[in-house]
């Protein structure tokens, strides 16, 4: 700002000097014309018009001022450049700090969420161990109930840890050519799907429905999508799993649809965010993990459509070479 002020001041000074000297020379010229002789006309300057001609002085002052102005401009440009570089560096440092802070915030949130998810079943386990120790085996039915609860909570704890770990190792370790049909069928076979829910499965261009990735990863992605679809339907509905190939870009498509009430508009943008869950029992890990797995395998996972008539999630993966199976 100071440099700018100096430059403006110099510019105004330069203009005023020019105007002032032009007026003086004009005035002197008139005076000479009127009197017909050369006279001292600059009493306040104490300079004789006869001895020092005005025009060259004005040009000299103008030139010096111009050079000064040019130098100041250059100086200003250089200082501006330095300041821009300095500010850029400051912004870089700040954004690095913010990125670190974001990572720490995510880590903190993750730690809190993991603590909550694990401590609840662990508390239940410790309560049942305490109760078993104090109650003994007098009541066989109650004893069995407590053992069953222990088993369930240990399984839950293990599943939570597995989900967290699968998020950290999203890159496939044992990739093989796997059949989409086999994987979908395996998932459906392992799941306890309520009887009221109808299941429609269709496979088109079956010989091309093969992908090269880790079987367990594809299994967990499909399981997650199918489980979400089932949970979206309250009592009854139709679960649809369709798979087909898009030949122009060699993509295997898998669409998982439900006939539930649809995903509320206010959460549609955050369904793939970590710990974002509208379900009471949701951990907010399922969809983000599934998306990470798919992306690590150069694929895409997105919400294709959602309305009051249901939702459809689309999974796109590169097709593997045609299998001989």
């Amino acid at each position, binding site marked *: 700002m100071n440099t700018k002020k100096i430059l403006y001041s110099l510019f105004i000074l330069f203009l005023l000097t020019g105007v002032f000297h032009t007026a003086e020379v004009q005035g002197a010229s008139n005076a000479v014309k009127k009197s017909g002789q050369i006279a001292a006309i600059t009493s306040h300057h104490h300079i004789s018009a006869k001895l020092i001609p005005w025009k060259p002085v004005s040009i000299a002052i103008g030139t010096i001022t111009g050079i000064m102005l040019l130098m100041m401009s250059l100086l200003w440009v250089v200082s501006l450049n330095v300041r821009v570089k300095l500010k850029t560096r400051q912004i870089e440092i700040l954004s690095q700090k913010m990125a670190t802070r974001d990572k720490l915030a995510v880590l903190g949130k993750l*730690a*809190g969420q993991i*603590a*909550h*998810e*694990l*401590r*609840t*079943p*662990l*508390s*239940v386990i*410790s*309560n*049942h161990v*305490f*109760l078993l120790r*104090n*109650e003994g085996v007098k009541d066989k039915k109650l004893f069995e109930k407590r053992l069953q*609860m222990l088993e369930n*909570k240990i399984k839950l704890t293990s599943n939570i840890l597995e989900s967290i770990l699968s998020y950290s190792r999203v890159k496939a370790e044992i990739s093989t050519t796997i059949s989409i049909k086999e994987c979908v069928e395996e998932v459906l076979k392992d799941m306890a799907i309520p009887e009221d829910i109808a299941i429609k499965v269709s496979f088109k261009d079956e010989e091309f429905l093969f992908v090269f990735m880790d079987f367990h990863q594809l299994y967990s992605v499909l399981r997650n999508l199918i489980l979400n679809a089932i949970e979206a339907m309250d009592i009854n509905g139709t679960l649809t799993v369709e798979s087909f190939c898009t030949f122009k870009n060699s993509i295997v498509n898998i669409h998982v649809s439900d006939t539930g009430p649809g995903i509320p508009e206010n959460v549609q943008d955050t369904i793939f965010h970590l710990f974002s869950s509208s379900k*009471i029992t949701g951990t907010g890990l399922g969809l983000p993990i599934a998306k990470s797995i798919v992306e690590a395998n150069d694929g895409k996972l997105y919400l294709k459509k959602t309305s009051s008539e249901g939702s459809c999630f689309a999974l796109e993966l590169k097709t593997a070479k045609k299998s001989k199976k």
Partner: protein
Amino acid sequence: MKQKEKNKKARILLVDDDKDMCESLSDVLTLGSNYDVVYSINPLEALEIIKKTDFSMAVIDFKMPDMNGLELLKRIKMLKPNIIVFLLTAFISNDLVEQAKKEGAARVLSKFIWPNEILKCISETLKDKQ
């Protein structure tokens, strides 16, 4: 809502969205027939229960859908200022302890607390209150 016992013992309300947690902790607290325990898995329902019933203590979870433990604590204290409230949380932070104390919580305890410890904390706090 489920009531485990009905007599003149100190009455405790448990609020946690995890039903298994409520049931197991309720069994722990009623094991020695020390307390009369009522539990709810819904904070809004818990407030309705508090309006109708007198409790010596409420043990509430922090992380719950619909309403978190701090908000529930605030509302419980507005309804019945004399109820002793324990806040259970999986992740204790200084901020949370400070806020909970400010709202009137007697204790902020880790969600993973051994049954013996929570029994001890409850009995000591109730004794101090008497």
